[in-house]
């Protein structure tokens, strides 16, 4: 009975099926919110699903001179890592796997797709792919650190690296975003950089380098990469909601899920707002903003938190 229950959790709720469905819905929320902000009507709710199915049904081309097996393997590994990370982040007030230090493991698992993207760009002998791959690696080096610093503040305050404990700590006093707005901003920008969203989307700047590391990928591989990006977005937002926005801080289970869902959608809307407001930064500005602005601010926040807490 117990194994069956665990299996159900892994595959259905809040595991695989749930993660993929919600990731698709969230991708729609993103596009719709952007469209509304721009005064457009926007795509219908099934749009991401249609995109995914269509890509799955398209011809899958291999590029001459690249390693076909590796090219097929990379998106699978990336998707697997993103989904595993999804198992650790709390959905409502329940995560499938929860242990001391799961925040770090989630972050690590979330960084695997970025490395996969870099490799996917690197193995194809095309300028666009290579440039895109390089830029995505650069972004990886720049924005992983602010994200970690931003998330370390609340962890230092609550003296735990466990997501569930971080959430319950917030229902005991107040949301971390109120105590550490700077850390929240740093972590949000780190997340935007990690997800390669506008204004930090240099790795796939359309007007400069085509579709970046994915320029030469089509069909099933492209579908998996897209899905990976959507799941990554969901997991990243889950993480932020749990660490900074109090997660599901209501006692009853159903209410908790509703509160959590509202927060996730709201945060996604916020990211869409940033996307609508700002244009893409140049590559050097991307690196500069991270190391000159975000990292010092994040360190400062962390130092103040540790000092106040001691």
């Amino acid at each position, binding site marked *: 009975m117990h194994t069956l229950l665990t299996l159900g959790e892994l595959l259905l709720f809040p595991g695989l099926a749930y993660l993929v469905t919600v990731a698709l819905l969230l991708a729609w929320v993103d596009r719709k919110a952007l469209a509304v902000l721009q005064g457009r009507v926007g795509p219908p709710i099934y749009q991401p699903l*249609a995109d995914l199915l269509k890509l799955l049904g398209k*011809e899958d*081309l291999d590029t001459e001179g690249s390693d076909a097996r590796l090219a097929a393997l990379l998106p699978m590994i990336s998707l697997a890592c993103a989904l595993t990370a999804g198992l650790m982040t709390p959905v409502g007030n329940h995560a499938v796997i929860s242990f001391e230090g799961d925040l770090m493991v989630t972050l690590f698992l979330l960084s695997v797709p970025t490395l996969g993207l870099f490799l996917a760009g690197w193995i194809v002998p095309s300028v666009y792919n290579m440039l895109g791959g390089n830029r995505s690696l650069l972004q990886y080096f720049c924005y992983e650190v602010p994200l970690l610093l931003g998330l370390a503040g609340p962890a230092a305050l609550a003296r735990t690296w466990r997501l569930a404990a971080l959430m319950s700590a917030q229902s005991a006093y107040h949301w971390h975003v109120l105590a550490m707005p700077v850390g929240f901003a740093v972590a949000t920008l780190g997340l935007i950089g990690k997800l390669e969203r506008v204004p930090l989307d240099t790795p796939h700047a359309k007007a400069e380098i085509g*579709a970046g590391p994915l320029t030469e990928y*089509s069909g099933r591989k*492209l579908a998996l990469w897209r899905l990976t990006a959507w799941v990554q977005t969901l997991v990243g937002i889950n993480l932020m909601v749990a660490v900074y926005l109090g997660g599901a801080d209501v006692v009853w289970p159903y209410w908790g899920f509703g509160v959590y869902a509202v927060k996730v959608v709201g945060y996604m809307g916020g990211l869409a707002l940033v996307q609508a407001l700002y244009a893409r930064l140049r590559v050097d500005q991307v690196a500069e903003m991270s190391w000159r602005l975000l990292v010092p601010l994040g360190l400062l926040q962390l130092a103040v938190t540790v000092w106040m807490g001691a």
Partner: protein
Amino acid sequence: MERVLRWARRRSPWVLHYNSGGCNGCDIELLDVLTPRWDVERLGIVKEAAPRHADILVCTGPITLKSREPLLRIYEQIPEPKWVVALGACACSGSLFGGSYHMLGGVDQLLPVARYVPGCPCRPEAIITALAELLETI
């Protein structure tokens, strides 16, 4: 399975735009279609940057001898199933450039064209109608 796939294809056409030698008039009209006023994202239409991501190749302008090779290569890079739309009088027939010494003529001289959109430049409404009609036949 077939039906699911057809449903998905109809609702998610990604467009690649190539100017094979036009005057830029039709290109601006094509970009118009993405703006709030016409907003083709309603129909799931997105403009893609890479040929390998595209479903529909939208070609503007007559084919010059120079752009013949790139156009062919782009077309061959698009994964099956794929369609070509000729945008503007030039792409339909060569228009006033037809018969010129460095011109091949309309897009149908080189590629199988699924839909023609006349006009110089073509109107956004006509573009949307053509794309919607094309989606109907998928």
